[in-house]
Each structure stands twice: as structure tokens, then as C-alpha cells.
């Protein structure tokens, strides 16, 4: 009964999304206030109905109701409750339902908090959200119904893929989708502006919080996915340039570009058309990602099932939205008018450069991701494009971008003085050089590239702090007023500093883990020891353990210092899940400051030894800590007063933008 209620709620949500697609749009077109006002309540009701459907499915999972085909295929009564619940979205149907739930959630947020938006803009935005919602709800109802029943109901389920039975599934997909789908709001704002034929600096201010929120979530989602893959797959890598990773990385790159170009638009009313295009492209890349992951054109952990009709359906949605929005863009963009002028050396110029690098990097990743599909479509050859390609193309694009990051926030709007900015950054530069020398002298004399990388990370961190210090008045204001000046700075300044600082921290982590790590593969018997980067790793014992729905062979290692004293223990195991007949590797990880010792088990050899792969990963946790700092930066920026209170209504806007143009 509850399952049918969920299904029915989903059908109703679809019907409402059709109303949301048409009525507010028509209202905006004909200036009918009452029709425009329909959008808000409908969007909120749509969220309630989708949430009801989602809750119905979640409860079926929690109760292990195997009469629901989806639950039978992906759950098991012995599974821990947390994994029963997270299993709701650990499959194709459920994850699409989560996708739509988050989409309607954002729609409802616009409806609830968009009171300061002009009525026509709000109506159009909600209508565009309605289109996306309708398309994906139809997709679920027509090809991926999570509520299909099984008669007779089986006694036991087939269990969730063991790789997904992890706390990561509780965090990674929801965060990632909040990011992915959050960009739909930016897309809707862009399309609404194009329909309206009007766009100005106020638009950027309205659209910016959504970009920031989506970007922060996506940053967290990608980082969480990366850490999950790192500890769960047992391969010791944090990024594989897997097409599915790229699918989430491309919207992030484009979204980062959007975040920056929207600043120019908000402050200087320039780059309007470009910002609109980026907003459209970012969400298009999210849609492309959904297609790549969900259609089964790629093999990966994320491709839960391949069903050609689903692929074709998503491809149709993709073409409709990307094609439609770009056509609208082509027709309307010219009429939007030109923006403010600026000198190439200026804050705007720096942000344009940032956009140039980021969009080119996005294009590179896109090319590498789609190239195998293109080659396969036009020839009999099958190829794969992996890390070597991306290292060669993406790397050279990122390095110069990172070098110029600290300059950006210090340059003045309209016309900046590069020399003066360089002088202000001398301390950060000196620290970066010191860090490089320290690496060369104390770590490895030949690691020139790695030293440069570490220097780059330090440069980013102190460059970001320099900006904050200068804005707080260090050097030209008396020391006693510094704390109050610092506290008085807009939150967005802290946001920028944190985001750029986080980027530096991540850079340090990547360089550390890739350049100074070590790796060894050996066969060990219990009682044997090996030495790894100055410590001794002793294989203590191998013991069988029984979990709720698995059995495991657990190897216990002790980490000893040079005197032989144990200071840490690492447990690494091979699990076996009998329902799916599937073994998994549970890597053992010991964290020492920011570095990690990573132990992964292989098979047993005929002599009773176990193959063990050991990695020493210096500074590796900084990769994800940096991403957390970036995410925090986004959240802090989101709390900026300007975005909460300063969002102007259209009537107040005209004098406000005129004033903006005068004040730099």
C-alpha cells in the first residue's frame, strides 16, 4: 500500500511538474500575476510529493520488503540498517529518484526564498525547473520505476554490491547530486534571463548564491568520492581519470569558471553573455555526466545496469535541454547588450584568464572522456584514454593557472598594477622559494619538479593569506585596529581566501602523495617484517572474523619504530560476501599526521604467504582536507551579507548599478 502511495505520489509530482512548466511561463509571457504565482506553491508541493515517494522507497528498504523488485535486487535482510537505508540510492532507480528529489528540493528553495526576485524572473526560473523535473520524472516513470512489485515476493534479497556497503554511500551521492543538480538553478536562471531578454548585474547577484551552494556541494561530493575510492578499492590511488570521475569533474571545472565570471558580472556588469553561456554549459555537463554514468555506455562501478532504452531516453533529454538552451542562447544573446570596459591587466582580466584556463581544461577532459566513444562509433578500434593523456594535457593547463591565482584578488578592478601586486606578494614568493629549497636540501636533491609543486602549494596558501592580511590593513593600519578591521571584512573575502588556501593545501597533498610516496609488493608470512620509510611493519597474525553479512580474513600489522616499540596497528582484510559470491578488499590505513601507511591484501601463495601491497603516502590526507577547506570557503561566501540582504529588487536596482559603476 505504502509502495503504491509512493508510486502514485511520483505520478502526481510528474503531473504537477507539467503545470509548473507551463502556467508560470504563460503568466510571465502575458503579464498575468495569478498565473505567475502558481509556480511557487506547485514547486513546493512537487517537493513534498517527491519526498513522499522517496520516503516510501526508503521505508521499503528499511523493512526489507522484497515484494518490491528494486529492494529484492539490491538489499538483504542481514544487512546493517544504515546500509539498508543508503541502499535506497545504491542502484539505478533509487539514485534517479534521489536526483529528482534534489531537483525538486532546489526548485522549492527558489520558490520559498526567491521573494526578492522580480515576479517574471521567478516564474520563468520555476518553469524551467519544471521542464527539467518533468523530463526526469517521466524518465523514472517510463523506464526506471523503483516501485515495481514482484509476485510472489521472494523470501530473501540479492544484497547490495558489497563495494557500496560503506558509509561513503551515505555521503558521496547526496553531496554530489546536491552539486550536480544545484547547477540546474543556475541553468534555469540563465534560460529565464534569455526568455525574458533582460539581464543585468542584479541577475548575477541573484544567481550567485545558487552557484556557490552547488559548487560547494560538488567540491565536497567529488572529494568524498575520491577518498571513498581510495580506501575502498584497495588500489591506493585517489584519482583514476575514470570517465565517471571525469563526468563529475567537468561540471566542477565549468562551475568554478562560472563562479568567477559571475563575480565580474555582478561587480562590473561585464561578461554577461559569457556568464550565461557558462551557466548553461555547466548544467549541460551535469546532464552529460548523468548520461555517461546512467546509460551504461561506460563500464564502471557506477553503471548499475545497462538498459539501452534508458540510455536513449537520457540522450533525448540531454539533446533537448542542451540543444534547446544553446539555440535560445544563439537567438537571444546578441540582444543582451555589452558590458563595462576593462584593461587586460585588472581584476576582470585575471578572472577572464581564469575562465580561459578552466574552460580549456574542461574541454580537454571532455575530449579525453568522449574520444573513446567517438572512435568506437566511427571505427572498429577500441581505445582507452587514461591517466597519461590527462597528465600531459590537464597538468600543463593547471600549473600556470595556479601560479596566477594569488594575483587575481589583489588586482584592482578596471585597471590594475601588476608590479605593485607582485611587490605585495613578495613574502608569499619568498616562502615558496624557501619551501622549494627545503625540499631539495632535506628530502630529495633530484626532485626538482616535486619541489616546484610543493613551492606552488605554499605560494597558493600564503598568497591567499597575503590577500586577507592586506585587506585587513596589515602594513598600513595601526596594529590595534587590525582585529576589528579583520572582523569587519565581508564574509566573501574570507570565502575567497579559504577557497584559494584550500586549493594550495590540496596541491601540497597531490604533490606529496605522487612524488614522495613509496610502494612495495611482497609476499609475507605472519611474523615477518618489512621496513617502510623509516618504520617497521610487522605482519602479526591472520585471523578469521565473521561480520553480519560477510566473513573476512583479517591481517593484523603492527607499526614499530626503530626501537621495536609498537605505536600503531593496521588491520587489512579480504572480505567475502556469500549472497553475491563476491570478495572485496578492505585496505588497512594508518594515519600519521597528514601522511598515511596503506596496506592492501592480495591472494595467498601456495607456501602460505600472503601477497601484500604497501604504500607510504606522504601528505595524502591534505588532498581531501584542502577540498574541505575549499568547501568551507564556499559556505562562508554564501553567508555574505550582500547575498542575504543586499540582493536588490528590480525597482531599486537602476540607481544601485549606476553607483556600482562609479565605485571600484
Amino acid at each position, binding site marked *: 500500500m505504502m509502495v503504491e502511495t509512493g508510486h502514485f505520489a511520483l505520478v502526481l509530482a510528474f503531473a504537477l511538474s507539467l503545470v509548473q512548466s507551463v502556467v508560470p511561463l504563460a503568466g510571465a509571457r502575458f503579464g498575468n500575476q495569478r498565473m505567475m504565482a502558481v509556480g511557487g506553491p506547485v514547486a513546493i508541493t512537487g517537493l513534498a510529493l517527491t519526498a513522499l515517494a522517496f520516503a516510501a522507497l526508503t521505508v521499503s528498504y528499511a523493512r526489507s520488503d522484497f515484494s518490491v523488485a528494486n529492494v529484492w535486487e539490491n538489499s538483504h535482510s542481514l544487512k546493517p540498517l544504515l546500509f539498508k537505508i543508503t541502499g535506497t540510492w545504491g542502484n539505478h532507480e533509487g539514485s534517479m529518484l534521489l536526483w529528482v528529489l534534489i531537483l525538486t528540493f532546489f526548485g522549492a528553495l527558489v520558490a520559498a526564498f526567491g521573494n526578492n526576485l522580480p515576479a517574471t524572473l521567478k516564474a520563468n526560473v520555476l518553469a524551467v525547473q519544471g521542464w527539467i523535473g518533468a523530463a526526469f520524472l517521466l524518465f523514472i516513470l517510463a523506464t526506471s520505476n523503483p516501485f515495481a512489485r514482484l509476485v510472489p515476493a521472494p523470501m530473501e534479497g540479492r544484497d547490495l554490491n558489497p563495494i557500496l556497503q560503506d558509509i561513503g554511500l551515505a555521503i558521496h551521492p547526496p553531496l554530489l547530486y546536491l552539486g550536480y543538480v544545484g547547477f540546474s538553478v543556475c541553468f534555469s536562471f540563465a534560460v529565464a534571463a534569455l526568455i525574458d531578454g533582460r539581464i543585468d548585474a542584479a541577475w548575477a547577484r541573484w544567481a550567485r548564491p545558487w552557484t556557490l551552494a552547488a559548487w560547494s556541494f560538488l567540491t565536497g561530493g567529488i572529494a568524498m568520492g575520491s577518498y571513498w575510492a581510495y580506501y575502498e578499492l584497495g588500489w591506493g590511488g585517489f584519482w583514476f581519470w575514470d570517465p565517471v570521475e571525469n563526468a563529475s569533474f567537468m561540471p566542477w571545472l565549468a562551475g568554478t569558471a562560472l563562479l568567477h565570471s559571475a563575480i565580474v558580472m555582478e561587480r562590473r556588469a561585464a561578461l554577461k553573455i559569457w556568464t550565461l553561456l557558462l551557466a548553461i554549459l555547466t548544467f549541460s555537463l551535469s546532464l552529460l555526466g548523468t548520461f555517461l554514468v546512467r546509460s551504461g555506455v561506460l563500464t564502471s562501478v557506477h*553503471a548499475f545496469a545497462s538498459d539501452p532504452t534508458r540510455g536513449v531516453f537520457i540522450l533525448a533529454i540531454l539533446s533537448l535541454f542542451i540543444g534547446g538552451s544553446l539555440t535560445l542562447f544563439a537567438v537571444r544573446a546578441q540582444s543582451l547588450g555589452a558590458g563595462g570596459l576593462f584593461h587586460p591587466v585588472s581584476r576582470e582580466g585575471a578572472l577572464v584568464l581564469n575562465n580561459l584556463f578552466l574552460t580549456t581544461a574542461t574541454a580537454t577532459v571532455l575530449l579525453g572522456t568522449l574520444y573513446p566513444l567517438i572512435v568506437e562509433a566511427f571505427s572498429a578500434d577500441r581505445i582507452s584514454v587514461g591517466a597519461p593523456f590527462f597528465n600531459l594535457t590537464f597538468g600543463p593547463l593547471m600549473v600556470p593557472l595556479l601560479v596566477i591565482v594569488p594575483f587575481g584578488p589583489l588586482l584592482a578592478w578596471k585597471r590594475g598594477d601588476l608590479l605593485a601586486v607582485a611587490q605585495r606578494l613578495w613574502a608569499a614568493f619568498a616562502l615558496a622559494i624557501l619551501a622549494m629549497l627545503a625540499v631539495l636540501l632535506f628530502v630529495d636533491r633530484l626532485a626538482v619538479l616535486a619541489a616546484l609543486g610543493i613551492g606552488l602549494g605554499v605560494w597558493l596558501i600564503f598568497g591567499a593569506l597575503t590577500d586577507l592580511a592586506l585587506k585587513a590593513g596589515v602594513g598600513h593600519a595601526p596594529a590595534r585596529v587590525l582585529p576589528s578591521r579583520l572582523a569587519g571584512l565581508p564574509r566573501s573575502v574570507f570565502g575567497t581566501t579559504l577557497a584559494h588556501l584550500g586549493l594550495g593545501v590540496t596541491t601540497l597533498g597531490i604533490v606529496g602523495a605522487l612524488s614522495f610516496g613509496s610502494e612495495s609488493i611482497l609476499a609475507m608470512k605472519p611474523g615477518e617484517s618489512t621496513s617502510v620509510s623509516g618504520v617497521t611493519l610487522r605482519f602479526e597474525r591472520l585471523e578469521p572474523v565473521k561480520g553480519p553479512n560477510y566473513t573476512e580474513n583479517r591481517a593484523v600489522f603492527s607499526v614499530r619504530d626503530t626501537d621495536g616499540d609498537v605505536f600503531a596497528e593496521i588491520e587489512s582484510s579480504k572480505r567475502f560476501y556469500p549472497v553475491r559470491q563476491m570478495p572485496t578488499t578492505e585496505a588497512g590505513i594508518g594515519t600519521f599526521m597528514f601522511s598515511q601507511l596503506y596496506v592492501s591484501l592480495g591472494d595467498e601463495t601456495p607456501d602460505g604467504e600472503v601477497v601484500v601491497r604497501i604504500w607510504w603516502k606522504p601528505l595524502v590526507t591534505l588532498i581531501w582536507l584542502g577540498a574541505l577547506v575549499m568547501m568551507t570557503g564556499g559556505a562562508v561566501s554564501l553567508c555574505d551579507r550582500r547575498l542575504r540582504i543586499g540582493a536588490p529588487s528590480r525597482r531599486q536596482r537602476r540607481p544601485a548599478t549606476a553607483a556600482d559603476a562609479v565605485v571600484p
Partner: protein
Amino acid sequence: MTRKQKRLSVIAGAMVFLGLATGLAVFALGQKASYFYMPADLAAATLPAGQRIRLGGLVEKGTILRGQGTDVRFAVTDMENSVKVVFNGILPDLFREEQGVITEGKFGADGVFVADSVLAKHDETYMPKEVAESLKARGVWQETTNE
């Protein structure tokens, strides 16, 4: 400069930049993309020495041989030809006899394929897509049963 000239110079700069990036990407694709082969394809193809490829097929029954240390030897077959592979490292969890596998690496001087990575299926239902399609094309595809 007028607004138009300024815009043109920005666009020209961006184009040069994009051109360089495209050139680099095309070069990298030529160098770094690795081609997928089944053992039977290899009989017909001539590979330049040291060329990195991906070799896919089924793990031939009875060929998995574990050495003293961490070396593993096995053969990859497509039911027509078979290729000997040597790999040093930890095999994926779902590596088994008569299961689909993709290995990446290059041929050694002795004609044995030296793999530096071995990918198996992600779970029991799915086979690497390239392998499944090639096997279907050869008519030796069998629907996997849940063992």
C-alpha cells in the same frame, strides 16, 4: 583601441590559446591512448615494439600459476587464440578462471605480455564491456550464471 578591436584581440588571444591546447590534446591522444585487442586480433596485427595496449579476454582455465613471490602468470584467451601474461601485484577481487579480464601493459621480448594493471569485473553481474562485446561478436558469449 575601440571596443570592437579590443574584443577581437581578446578573441584572437583566446583562439591562439585554444589552438595550443588542442594541438597538445591531439598530440597526447596519438601518444597516450591505448588500443584494445583480443588475442585473435593480435595474431593478425603487427604491433610496434614497446607499444602499450589493453589486452582483453577470458582467463584461460588451468593457467593461473602463482610463483614463489608476487608474480602471477596466466593466459588470456578468446577461445581462438591465447596469450601468456605475467603480472606482478595484487589481482583484483573478481579475478577468476574463465572470467572476463582486461590487462594493460606491453609485450616483453619473449612474447609474454607484461601487464602492469589487471582489471576484472566490478561485480558478479557485469563483464568488462569491451570483452563482452568482442566475445559476442565471436559467438562465444555465454550469459554468466550466478555461481
